[in-house]
């Protein structure tokens, strides 16, 4: 073939006499479906490799030996292929398979969770003969057995389609379930020693085409025909998976993944899926100090006690606090939080704080993220760009634990062999075994490693000063350089804070080095808290302004000198203790759960007047003077901006309990009481204002039909969405009910954004903190690495009993090398001593932990409920935390 000959991307095939165009490499089943011929199936799932085992999709395909029955889910199209799906022979084969499937299937549809939304039931009604010829005794297994904390297995109902086992090994990479037995006695079985507690376990329930796998939290809570549903966005982390939210009789019952091509492919993590209990707080205590309880009425503190009150009284109390604190200077007030808000609410609060009150002390992060200006200035990668990158460099916490769907998307392309993974490994990671190159990066070294990669060999000598020497070889470094190429084209850096016990400036310096050295590379910063990107885009950080703008950018464009930036979260807490700030507005409430330096946080909260705007209770509220209750996820309308900058819609499914208001309304009303008008009387007003003043997609997303959302600053290409396959997504009510009707088989039209109306942050506007000097490591010590887990002591998990049960007790982990060096053994209780504290903890060996470090998990508890990590962290700490580990 000559070089310029265009390679054909389509072929024509004939399906039931009709000629259709199919894509090269496409499966018959998919090509036929796009052209309107639905071939029945069970084992096939469009997001997994076909296996062709259920044999339901047999169709006739003409070949050298005449037409033969072939699985449409397995055979790819070829030019001129002739496919028949309606002949007598096909019908008999398909009916035969269905009859075989039903032979041993129990007749318990009336009591089965899947009854009413079961693909097997639907197929049977559509094709089954109605009477059974199987008079033998059916196969028996013990009734449902729990195979993990969240999933139950009823083996009698299983049709051996292997969707769940394939999901577990192929998609999630957690082969904690597999088939056991052979032939007729084949069954899905968990491991003999490990429960099926994959953080993706709920997906197996969602894709099971019968009622074999059921979710413990959902079991028996509703019958499918009582369910109502809206399509929305999950706000549990910053990935923003598309979800179908279902309720029954006014209560949330279930969340299912919707197949959004650019985002989640239909998958969800179990935290996002099962977090429902935390929303309605139904099973939880009424104590506002309990994590996860719901706040339903405004409250004020009277005589030291929080008491329920009216909105007008609560708002005026809040207004009082604010005016008192701003008597001398507007900076007497500050706000912390905001990732839990919708974009519209964040916009309204920004107006209130900067416009009405006049303070720039606003920070949606808790000191555990990365410089907000840097985040805004980096060329942002989309998830699709991550999944199609030739090389991905990860300098971040464990993606599986922090951003589960990013992990799935990235893992898929690494396993397929299209993406090379480079890990700058500070801590153990779930992707480790798939990495092409691992550069162990101890705390305090990331910026040197980045420089070394950026071809500065001198940086290597900085690494060699460690008593354990440089952690990697020059040949590994050379390989990384090769993979990154000259300009970083096709490279994505996934960057975040891999270690809470390390000064952020170290990571920020590394990121900046990469950005300067590889101008064509893209970046995916890994801030994980809910709508944090929306909050930053709406200006909720010192110096930022709505529309991804900043004071510095505005000053740069308009030629004026930039005003001084307000205070970050930690700076506000310090300022309170120094008497420079006296009031705090908490947007979302959970300061104690998020700020590493607990003693600082407690002291500051104690000293300040605190207005908490929140839907959920928690320990922080012990310090609140006014509590303003808000609607939370699944109760409110708005937009959400995900990690890649994609704006998608949030739809309410249930009404907020009690007298909770939307955040937009609270900001507006508070402004009124303070004597000003925001002009944002409704969420839609806010959405319109965002779109018209900033050119930021909001109103258009709320009203639009682009269910996949719109990426900020990008022109979305027309995306071809397939029709909703009821077999791939059993349980999704119907195309119309989820608002998928519009995209069923249709094209989402290109949305070009209105020209940006405000200057966006560029690298010129970023001024990073200087990198601290790193103390020399002590040859007998270990550097502390503090990582995060998906199941933590946060509100979402603690408010969901099923998930709370999965939180692991904290242990300290270290590399086998250090175990030998320090003479400890797995299971030993050791004493960890830092400059600040000493604590006793069990150690466990883990070869994924970087040598010379000890790994602990942020916020997870000890057996006695105490949180040891925070004892060693303080806001005035050195750049890294060194500890000694001693046997007791």
């Amino acid at each position, binding site marked *: 073939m000559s070089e310029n000959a265009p390679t054909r991307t389509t072929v024509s095939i004939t399906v039931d006499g009709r000629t259709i165009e199919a894509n090269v490499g496409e499966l018959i089943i998919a090509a036929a479906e796009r052209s309107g011929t639905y071939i029945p199936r069970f084992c096939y799932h469009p997001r997994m490799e076909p296996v062709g085992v259920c044999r339901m999709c047999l169709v006739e395909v003409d070949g050298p030996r005449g037409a033969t029955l072939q699985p449409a889910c397995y055979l790819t199209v070829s030019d001129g292929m002739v496919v028949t799906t309606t002949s007598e022979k096909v019908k008999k*084969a398909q009916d035969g398979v269905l009859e075989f499937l039903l032979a041993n299937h129990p007749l318990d549809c009336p009591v089965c969770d899947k009854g009413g939304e079961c693909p097997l039931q639907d197929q049977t009604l559509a094709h089954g003969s109605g009477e059974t010829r199987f008079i033998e005794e059916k196969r028996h297994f013990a009734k449902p057995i729990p195979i993990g904390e969240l999933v139950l297995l009823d083996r009698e109902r299983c049709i051996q389609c292997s969707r769940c086992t394939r999901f577990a090994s192929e998609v999630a990479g957690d082969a904690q379930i597999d088939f056991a037995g052979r032939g007729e006695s084949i069954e899905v079985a968990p491991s003999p020693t490990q429960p099926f507690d994959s953080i993706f376990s709920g997906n197996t329930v969602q894709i099971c085409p019968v009622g074999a796998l059921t979710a413990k939290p959902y079991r028996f809570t509703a019958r499918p025909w009582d369910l109502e549903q809206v399509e929305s966005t999950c706000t549990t982390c910053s990935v923003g998976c598309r979800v179908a939210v279902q309720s029954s009789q006014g209560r949330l019952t279930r969340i299912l993944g919707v197949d959004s091509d650019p985002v989640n492919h239909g998958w969800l993590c179990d935290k996002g899926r099962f977090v429902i209990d935390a929303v309605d707080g139904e099973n939880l205590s009424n104590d506002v100090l309990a994590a996860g309880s719901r706040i339903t009425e405004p409250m004020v503190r009277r005589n030291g006690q929080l008491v329920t009150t009216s909105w007008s009284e609560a708002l005026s109390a809040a207004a009082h606090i604010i005016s008192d604190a701003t008597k001398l200077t507007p900076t007497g007030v500050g706000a912390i939080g905001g990732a839990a808000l919708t974009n519209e609410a964040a916009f309204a609060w920004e107006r209130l704080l900067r416009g009405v009150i006049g303070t720039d002390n606003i920070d949606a992060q808790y000191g555990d993220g990365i410089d907000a200006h840097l985040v805004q200035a980096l060329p942002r990668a989309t998830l699709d760009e991550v999944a199609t990158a030739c090389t991905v460099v990860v300098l971040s916490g464990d993606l599986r634990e922090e951003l589960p769907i990013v992990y799935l998307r990235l893992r898929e392309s690494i396993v397929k062999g299209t993406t090379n993974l480079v890990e700058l490994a500070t801590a153990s990671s779930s992707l480790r075994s798939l990495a092409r190159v691992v550069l162990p990066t101890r705390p305090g070294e990331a910026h040197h490693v980045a420089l070394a990669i950026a071809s500065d060999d001198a940086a290597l000598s900085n690494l060699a000063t460690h008593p354990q020497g440089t952690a990697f070889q020059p040949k590994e470094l050379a390989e990384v350089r090769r993979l990154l190429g000259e300009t970083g084209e096709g490279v994505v850096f996934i960057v975040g804070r891999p270690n809470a016990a390390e000064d952020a400036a170290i990571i920020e310096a590394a990121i900046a080095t990469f950005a300067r050295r590889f101008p064509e590379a893209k970046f995916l910063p890994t801030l994980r808290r809910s709508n944090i990107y929306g909050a930053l885009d709406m200006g909720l950080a010192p110096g930022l302004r709505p529309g991804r703008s900043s004071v510095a950018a505005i000053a740069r464009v308009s030629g004026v000198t930039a005003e001084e930036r307000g205070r970050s979260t930690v700076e506000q807490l310090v300022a309170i203790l120094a008497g420079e700030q006296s009031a705090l507005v908490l947007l979302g409430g959970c300061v104690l759960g998020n700020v590493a330096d607990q003693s600082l946080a407690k002291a500051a909260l104690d000293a300040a007047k605190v207005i908490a705007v929140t839907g959920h209770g928690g320990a922080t509220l012990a310090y609140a003077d006014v509590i303003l209750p808000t609607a939370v996820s699944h109760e409110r309308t708005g937009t959400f901006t995900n990690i890649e900058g994609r704006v998608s819609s949030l739809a309410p499914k249930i009404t907020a309990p009690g007298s909770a208001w939307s955040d937009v309304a609270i900001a507006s009303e508070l402004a009124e009481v303070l004597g000003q008008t925001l002009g944002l009387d409704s969420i839609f007003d806010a959405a319109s204002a965002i779109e018209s003043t900033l050119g930021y997609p909001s109103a258009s997303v709320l009203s639009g039909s682009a269910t996949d959302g719109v990426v900020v600053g990008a022109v979305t290409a027309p995306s071809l969405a397939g029709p909703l396959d009821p077999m791939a997504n059993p349980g999704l009510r119907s195309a119309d009910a989820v608002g998928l009707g519009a995209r069923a088989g249709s094209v989402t039209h290109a949305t070009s954004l209105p020209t940006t109306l405000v200057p966006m942050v560029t690298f010129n506007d970023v001024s990073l903190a200087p990198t601290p000097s790193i103390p020399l490591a002590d040859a007998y010590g270990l550097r502390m690495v503090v990582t995060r887990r998906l199941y933590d002591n946060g509100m979402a998990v603690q408010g969901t009993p099923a998930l709370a049960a999965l939180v692991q007790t904290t242990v300290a982990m270290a590399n086998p090398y250090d175990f030998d060096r320090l003479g400890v053994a797995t299971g030993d209780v050791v004493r960890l001593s830092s400059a600040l504290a000493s604590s006793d903890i069990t150690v466990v060996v883990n070869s994924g932990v970087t040598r010379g470090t000890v790994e602990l998990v942020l916020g997870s508890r000890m057996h006695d409920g105490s949180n040891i990590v925070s004892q060693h962290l303080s806001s005035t700490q050195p750049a890294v935390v060194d500890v000694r580990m001693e046997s007791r």
Partner: protein
Amino acid sequence: MASFTAPKIVSSRSEFTDSHTLSRYVATGGFEGLKKALSMFPEAVASEVERASLLGRGGAGFPAGRKWSMLRKAPVSCLVINGDESEPATFKDHYLVEREPHQLVEGIIIASYALQVSQVFIFLRGEFALGLERVQQALNDAYEYGALGSNIMGSGFSLDIVVHPGAGAYICGEETALIEALEGKRGFPRIKPPFFPAAIGLYGQPTVVNNVETMANLPWIINNGGAAFAALGGGRSTGTRLFALSGQVNNPGMYELEMVKNTFRDIIFDPALGGGIPEGRKLKAFIPGGVSAPWFGPEHLDLPLGQDEVAEKASMLGSGSIVVLDDASCAVRAAWRITKFFSRESCGQCTPCREGSGWLERIMFRLEHGGGRPEDVELLLDLCDNIAPGLSWPPQQTTICVLGSSIPSSITSAITMFRSEFEAHVTNDGCPHV
């Protein structure tokens, strides 16, 4: 009259009780074929095999030379020897691994040289404890003797062979299931395409899978030339073959016979071979090539033992095992037991095979043990048709591998040949023979 003129090619040492030892092997011409092969170009060795027209002895009867020529060129390619022998009533490989392990090893080295493969595994049925010991010993001896390892017999050719034990699953005889088992997985046959492991096999690398007996023929072929082998037998069925005779005959056993020159009558009735049916009973039916094969009746006795000859009459020579049923035996019982075998051995991937085999077995059980209904015969046939549409031979299939489409053979044969017996089972509410 049976023909005994052909030489014994793979069972020539059967009279020696120490045929498995290196000394006996070398004393009886062992490794001569290998020495000759190593003096030839690998391609020339392969063409001798091509010329011999050696049909695979594992059951499918695919010409070994052709299969070899399909091996995709790649840096690493593999040879896998199928010694899983689990087809009911087949016991020739069992004989070869226990009694002629060196001949097997020599054949494998010759094939490896011809194919220039770099990885060789012998997959041996796990239940062959002694066979595993003997083959491993033969390999150990071969290393010692210089026939394996680095620079074999000064030829510059190096080779390593690994014995891999199976663990009790009939389906692992199917070559793609065998490859899965060799990769340490459940023995699920792979879906086709790709149709041949020669393109994508073990670890995704090009792989030739050959039967034990196929390999055992190679030393003789190289020693005597492919043409000498091709001169034996007739048509496509050249050389000799090990036939395993069992069931109701006077002398069950394994006989190496020239292909085509002998008939089923010869092997069952010749006094030097099967010796006829015991106690003066008559032949009722026989299964010509393993239990996957449709049955034959007395009218087929004069059919030559040749692959195409048997295929023309809508059955198969398969694994070369012949089971004889006398007129006192029950066709329903025999077909039931075979169906039970398939039901126990179905890997369980495909719905029609997994569920169909169990359902058929239950119906056959009822017929045999009481509880049969008049409509069961039609139900059996219809279910068989749903597994192998059209019930033709060779069968069409709704399943991934041919185990599925083999299930109906015995049931449809029994119904076609002995329908009245089924009816008698219904009327009698169980087997009238007991």
